[in-house]
């Protein structure tokens, strides 16, 4: 019973934070409300006994990714956009109506479904007996999911390289053209200048 009350509290706070995120004019305020939402979602993970994921949610999402966002928001100085119109003039009411319609569809469909558990065997008691949720989680990750795990590291590497290439300063001498074409080897001196 306590779990249900806590779940409801965290769920309401998470949705409220989400609504605040999409309604704030100030990007930094929206970002802080988004972090608030993520922390509430981490609390829901705790309630679900997904302890490792709850910690990762706080460390990676509310920590690393949001710090990246804060850094770029501060870096770009977006204060000037607060005076501009924040929503699409032509489509905002249609978009809101469609969103409410989709939510109604979700609720109607979910109200008509009864789920039956597949009983995979990893009950909290079994997990605790096998050495705790993090140990069981990592066992599953590095046995069944090893190949996807390695692929995820490649995705992160590609994203890192892509981000660096995208934000790399163009050579100031000829702004219109790239310092080197994609696919061509950068010359040694241009590589030195870009560092």
């Amino acid at each position, binding site marked *: 019973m306590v779990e249900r009350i806590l*779940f409801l509290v965290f769920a309401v706070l998470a949705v409220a934070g989400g609504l605040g995120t999409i309604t704030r004019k100030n990007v930094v305020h929206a970002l802080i409300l988004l972090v608030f939402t993520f922390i509430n979602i981490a609390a829901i993970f705790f309630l679900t006994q997904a302890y490792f994921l709850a910690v990762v949610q706080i460390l990676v999402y509310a920590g690393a990714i949001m710090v990246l966002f804060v850094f770029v928001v501060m870096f770009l100085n977006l204060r000037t956009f607060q005076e501009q119109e924040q929503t699409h003039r032509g489509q905002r009411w249609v978009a809101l109506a469609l969103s409410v319609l989709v939510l109604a569809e979700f609720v109607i469909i979910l109200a008509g479904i009864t789920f039956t558990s597949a009983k995979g065997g990893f009950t909290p008691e079994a997990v605790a007996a096998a050495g705790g949720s993090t140990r069981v989680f990592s066992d599953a990750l590095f046995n069944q999911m090893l190949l996807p795990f390695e692929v995820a590291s490649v995705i992160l590497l590609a994203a890192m390289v892509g981000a660096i290439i995208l934000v790399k300063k163009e050579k100031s001498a000829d702004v219109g053209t790239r310092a080197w074409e994609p696919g061509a080897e950068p010359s040694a001196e241009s590589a030195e200048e870009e560092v």
Partner: protein
Amino acid sequence: MGATPADMPIPVDWYLYLSAALFVVGAAGVLVRRNLFIILFSIELMMNAVNINLVGFSRFHENLVGQNFVLFTMAVAAAEAAVGLAIATTLFRNRQTLMVDLFDRMKG
């Protein structure tokens, strides 16, 4: 409320309703707002809604694959945030704005 295992304190439906609500909030943010950053935040919100679904069903079906999948979702979200922010930085550098309806140079 749907059927739940005897030891699951929170019905799985609750996770699904919460997830649907967060997802719709994120979708509304993408559709309504003009600011590229708010659109990126809304996409993160939708990804988190999916994560709630996965964790809830992982608990419900007593299977850890759902939780493992959340880790991959987070990796993809991190990659998406990095590339999205890089694109935003480049756009801002070239056009001095981040209002997405102004980026219509490729309109036919």
